[in-house]
């Protein structure tokens, strides 16, 4: 593969289920290596996005590529090189973990001997070495999550997609699972996508995030950039037309955007930006109501973007 070619690339894909727009106009590009958090509240369209990427459902609109292959036509080839851990339980309860993982390995085309050896290996790796001969129906929730991870790893995929890998796990189990994910991410040629609505999990393991809400992309970028960028930002509330002010900022080369009823000005590392902002405001004869720094956790970023989205939706609905 070409160095740094994106592993996942979508261009304005949408997926409708009847009247429900599960994914809307999603454009993302995810480079090779590292862990990406796909973040969003319930019903945001995360799972649907994954199904689109795996070629399990066809997009209603738009184009996409995974590992350089078209998601509309190359589903089988994509799934050959991707490991997928579904969000819900999917087990054959009356067989043991080794048989289960081995069976699924064979469904990837692995020989009996390879699948068996690899099943033992991955079950040990996820911490189920002792229980690998137990029937899956006797497993605890946390153990079941581990089996699901094991089956996703059995064929050693290049891209690993994990849908809510920590649901139902106790705090210790969660940390274990996240550490496993971090450990897998150490393999340089592997890319991990982790779906979650638990911000702490994403903050712990991901180096990039894609935030979705109501099927739409809200933000994307490196975690550091997003959080740091926000740390360096300034929040303004003014009396008058905020959009007009944003236009003026942008004309001066200052990036800014509307958030709720406030303006978010991205300052970067430029200390003189505050002065410039003040100058522009004075010029525009805008009255300042609030001037300050936003708090800077991912949660805050998440909540602010989501609530902004919701506000916009409500406004649209009321028109």
């Amino acid at each position, binding site marked *: 593969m070409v160095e740094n070619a994106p592993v996942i690339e979508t261009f304005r894909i949408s997926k409708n289920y009847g009247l429900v727009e599960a994914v809307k106009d999603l454009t993302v590009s995810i480079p090779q290596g590292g862990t990406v958090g796909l973040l969003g509240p319930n019903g945001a369209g995360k799972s649907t996005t994954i*199904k689109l990427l*795996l070629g*399990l*459902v066809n997009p209603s609109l738009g184009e996409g590529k995974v590992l350089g292959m078209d998601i509309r036509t190359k589903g*089988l*080839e994509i*799934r*050959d090189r*991707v490991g*997928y851990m*579904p969000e*819900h*339980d*999917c*087990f*054959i*309860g*009356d*067989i043991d973990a080794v048989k289960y993982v081995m*069976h*699924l390995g*064979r*469904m*990837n*085309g*692995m*020989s*009996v001997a*390879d699948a068996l050896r*690899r099943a033992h*290996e991955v079950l*040990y*790796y*996820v*911490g189920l*070495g002792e229980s690998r001969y137990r029937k899956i129906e006797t497993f605890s929730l946390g153990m079941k999550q581990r089996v699901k991870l094991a*089956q996703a*790893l059995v*064929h*050693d995929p290049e891209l690993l997609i994990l849908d809510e890998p920590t649901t139902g796990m106790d705090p210790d189990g969660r940390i*274990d699972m996240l*550490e*496993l994910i971090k*450990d*897998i991410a*150490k*393999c340089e040629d592997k890319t991990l996508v982790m779906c979650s609505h638990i911000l702490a999990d994403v903050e712990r393991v991901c180096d990039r995030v894609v935030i979705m809400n109501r099927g739409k992309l809200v933000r994307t970028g490196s975690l550091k950039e997003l959080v740091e960028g926000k740390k360096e930002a300034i929040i303004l509330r003014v009396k008058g037309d905020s959009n007009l002010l944003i236009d003026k900022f942008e004309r001066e080369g200052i990036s800014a955007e509307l958030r709720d009823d406030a303006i978010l000005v991205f300052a970067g590392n430029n200390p003189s930006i505050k002065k410039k902002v003040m100058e522009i405001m004075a010029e525009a004869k805008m009255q300042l109501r609030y001037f300050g720094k936003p708090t800077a956790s991912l949660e805050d970023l998440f909540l602010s973007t989501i609530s902004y989205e919701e506000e916009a939706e409500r406004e649209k609905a009321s028109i």
Partner: protein
Amino acid sequence: MSIESLGYKEWEGQKHGRFYKVLSLVDYEVRHAWSSIWVKILIIIAWLPVLIIFLVPVTEISEEGVDRAFYNLVSFTTSITIWLPIMAGLIGGGLIANDKNNKMFSMYFSRPLRREDYIAGKVGGFAVLMSIPTIVPALIIYIVLIGKSDLSLLVFIKKSWLLGAAWLYFILLIALFGSLVLFLSSVVTDSKYAVVGLFTIVILSDLIANLLWLASDNEIYRLGSLTFNLENILAEFLGIDQSTLQLADQQNGGVGGLVSAWKSLVVIVGITSFMSVLTLLRLLSLEEE
């Protein structure tokens, strides 16, 4: 053992194509079904005639008694009609329903496994399991008969059409019950309902067809009964009258009387084809979740 000490190991190896995956699925389904005690019991029952033929002395058979000797084989094949639906329900009822219940579709289809290959694997598993109590023992009985009797091989070659006919009859039965039970399995939420459904279809079709026949005195309504059609085919093509468990009186045209066995064959093949298409369409359109 701690996780860190082990570390993630990469794997490199050859991956096989679709044919291998279908065979793997067949292999898995056969082993999985075999782990059920009920399946084992039914298969052992089906093999009882094989044991009996080993024990019964057949060396005494004269040339005239050859039909009687084959009757052993053939009466075994006819007894299949009765419990084959039980077996089909037990094996086939859960084939798809369980995967649907366990949400295994997302495990299978998130892999490089085509739906057609999944279906082929399930059908293959069913066919292999169903042939263990039917096609295989029929062959063994036939071979044992040759080995144990003093009759010349020529007689057996001349009579080998019986074995062929029995096999064709089994294939017809397996296809019919397979298509019915797989369809039921793909629509129900619990494998038990598929078994119940299969029996309801077999019994209801017989009941309604017979009532219509009696009420109207028109033989044609008998074609609505699955069991009648099967018996009719058996009588015509194998020369066995199952209701009396005797060799059928060919002059009377089997059990069907006025209803030709060919019509019964058309009905059975028609139902099988229709149900197969329905099952295929159903499976191809099922959601992953």
